[in-house]
């Protein structure tokens, strides 16, 4: 019963958010300078070809009409076709003349789905790394405020949060792949290519986890049900692992929901540095090539993921703490 009502509300809210995002991105890309039609057919194309293409794409319609058309397609799961990317492989150079009647441009959704698994793998591995680094530091710091562990957590957090991810990526790639030859780093030919980028991402995320854990564990340890637990006869092990961490995990889940943006932003940069063929690299390339439908599609898709994961996060939080049901 609860789950159903909750899901209805959240999914409705999610659609509103997605609508707003679509609207914003769509408008933004229409008002910035640059002629999409010329982009598609190429710089050398004659003007009449450009005009013909614009007409064909509906670019001469007023923006609201274009928006509604786009929404209509979106509802059917059609994000349109990439301006530049053919169905198979290589990018068509934007400067050469290109036959406007050619209809073999790749579907935006296909392009996204094709890249998605690699990005998910990268994100998953980096979250595991991040927890491995941050959990011991954060928990130890929270259990003993003022101890050397707490101070270590504090300084490690301050240092990690100050580390520009692209720079760390470059330096690590040089040190570990080029100089030491321990791990591969450019492109993707197997799982080992994920490790180094995931580590860079983990370092970027870790400070948030460390700080949240330190603060929330320290706070939980002050709660009466924890201070009274040894008097009730519970062992220190159970107090920390069954109760303190359980209660501190709720702020951590919420943090995950909020910092998802940081993670996705990080993915983008890291994929670019390591030439890792995921969604992030696709995004950057589509921006650099002004492939509007693709930019639009990716932004909407990512908001969708964001909304979806936040619903999951809230469900998980209510599973842990039933007071949060609302």
């Amino acid at each position, binding site marked *: 019963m609860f789950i159903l009502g909750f899901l209805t509300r959240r999914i409705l809210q999610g659609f509103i958010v997605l609508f707003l995002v679509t609207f914003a991105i769509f408008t933004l890309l229409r008002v910035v300078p640059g002629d999409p039609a010329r982009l598609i057919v190429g710089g050398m194309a004659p003007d009449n070809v450009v005009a013909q293409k614009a007409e064909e794409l509906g670019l001469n319609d007023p923006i609201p009409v274009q928006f509604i058309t786009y929404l209509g397609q979106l509802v059917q799961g059609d994000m349109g076709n990439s301006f530049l990317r053919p169905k198979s492989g290589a990018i068509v150079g934007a400067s050469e003349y290109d036959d406007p009647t050619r209809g073999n441009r790749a579907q935006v959704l296909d392009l996204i789905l094709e890249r998605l698994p690699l990005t998910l793998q990268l994100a998953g591995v980096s979250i595991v790394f991040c927890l491995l680094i941050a959990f011991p530091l954060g928990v130890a710091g929270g259990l003993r405020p003022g101890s050397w562990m707490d101070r270590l957590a504090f300084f490690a957090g301050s240092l990690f949060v100050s580390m520009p991810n692209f720079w760390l990526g470059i330096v690590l790639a040089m040190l570990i792949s080029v100089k030491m030859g321990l791990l591969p780093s450019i492109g993707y030919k197997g799982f080992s290519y994920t490790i180094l980028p995931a580590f860079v991402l983990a370092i970027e995320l870790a400070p948030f986890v460390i700080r949240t854990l330190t603060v929330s564990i320290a706070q939980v340890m002050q709660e009466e049900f924890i201070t009274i637990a040894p008097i009730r*006869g519970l062992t220190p092990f159970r107090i920390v692992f069954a109760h303190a961490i*359980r209660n501190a995990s709720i702020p951590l889940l919420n943090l995950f929901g909020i910092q998802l943006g940081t993670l996705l932003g990080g993915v983008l940069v890291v994929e670019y540095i390591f030439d890792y063929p995921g969604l992030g690299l696709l995004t950057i390339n589509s921006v650099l090539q002004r492939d509007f439908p693709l930019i639009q599609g990716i932004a909407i898709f990512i908001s969708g993921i964001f909304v979806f994961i936040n619903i999951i996060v809230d469900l998980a939080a209510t599973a842990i703490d039933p007071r949060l049901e609302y």
Partner: protein
Amino acid sequence: MTDKKLLRVDGLSVDVVKGTMVTPVLSDISFSLNTGHVLGVIGEAGSGKTVLSRALVNGLGPPLEISSGQVIYKGRNILDLSQRELRLIRGKEIGYIGANPMGSLDPTMAIGEQIVEKLRSVRPDMSAVAAKERVLDVLASVHIPSPEARFHEFPFQFSGGMMQRVMIVDALVTDPTFLVADNITQALDVTVAAQIIRLIEELRLKFNTAIVFVSSSLPVVSSLADEILVLHEGKIVEHSTPHELINQPRHDYTKSLLARLPRIWGDDVKQLAENNGDVVLSVRDVAKTYVVRKRGTFNDHNYVQAVRGVSFDIHEGENFGIVGESGCGKSTLTRLLAWLETPDAGTIRFQGFDLAELTKAELVTMRSSFQLLLQDPYNALPSRMPVGRIIAESLYIHDGGSKEEIRRKVLSAMEEVGLPKDLENSLTVGLSAGQRQRVCIARALVLEPKLLILDETLSALDQVEQAQLLELFALLQEKYRFTYVFISHDMAMVRKVCNRIAVMYLGKIVELAGNSILFENPQHPYSKALLSAVPTLDDHPFQAEEYLLDGEPPSPVDIPQGCTFMTRCPARMKICGSREPDLNITVGRAQSACFRATEMGDEVPHQLK
């Protein structure tokens, strides 16, 4: 000799250590306790009684440090045991119940699960099934309705009283030989507290547990204990039996404690007459319902009927009391009276003006005439403003004249409420609860109000401060002819100051009567139950055995049909289920919403001669 005692405390001293500052909290505490006996410890806030109860279970942490002494349980000094050794007895043979039941268990886990967890931590030999059975058994023995269902519920789904029962189960589930009960009724409503005391009495015989029962209420302690320790400023000032302590107190502190106990019944209790001044505030059929979205639904709502049609008049210069327990709607009524919220139905007229019909500007002007004093003196004042500025705030809002004039008014108000002049520029952080309340009073006073609404204003204060403030209120009333509305759960305080009193239950006034009628000849069974639960040493006309109710009020979301009190009423009749009784006139100007009231109206309870 010593080994026969279950517990012996020898020269126990505890200090607060902060850096190089050492402040003693307990000094040289010694006493002993036999198997199955109850030792009462009585002390006011700050007497060190909670520190003592924590020390008995070796549960002190920084900044508290034990500087000397022993706590010998069955021949072994608990304070010297290692954590491992301690685990073998603490939680198993020694139980502990604290003052804050709502915070004592993990809010994210079902209560049954947590008690089983505890039971199996101290008795690893027990199987999960056996442990669960045992927990269900004990849950039933503390009269928690449908224990199987509640086993799976979470702490937030329990009321304070029920949760305290859960904590009693948590302590007793291991069959402890020794139990520390630290102020366990402090956070509870009177009738609920009385139920808990009755439960402890019952369980004590059943489990044959030795109890150290710590409380700030002498009547409560003396009704339970075999012996009583009086704790004052960290020292034991007196140690005797309840009878001796009450009748022949030896130490001055004990004597003053007894003298300060509020008197409710007896020949020497001051009788307050009703007065018939002009009507200042007139409340007619006021109702307020809150709409709250139902948990887990998309668009389904609960209607919380907080106030359900309340009418009364308040006369100039009188003290009007509104009493009731948590959830009875008195806080909502307070907000309505102060016009912080507007009623859904009914009218509130102040000095003849319907507050709903005033314009915004008129209302602001009118506000200076009726002022609300808030409950919690620590949160009622902005922390960033100095005292003088806080008091001046009222005048700035109401355009109280030039800067000099305002300052003059502020200083004279400060003097009037007994605040030293040099506090004018200091922040409120260092002030005591009583001083803070005085700031609140001064802030209302500069507006020259007619009516003061006191929302539990005195409940955060200790007896001495409370008495001083009541004196101040009386003084101001004499000088300015103030009218007071006291909203309170404290029957003793209301007895002392109010001319007329309204008793609220589930959003309605069930009885409205003059002071002496309400306390000596109440008509409504709820009023009687409330009175039976008041802890007092006086000869009690309403014995708990006869009048105290079981259970708890129904939820204001699901109000029963007919008389709302019917679910708990010992004297319900057929008619009660079909119709809700109005406030009928019974004795003199007393009104009672009970069908039985008219029929036994003039009968005086037999306990009163």
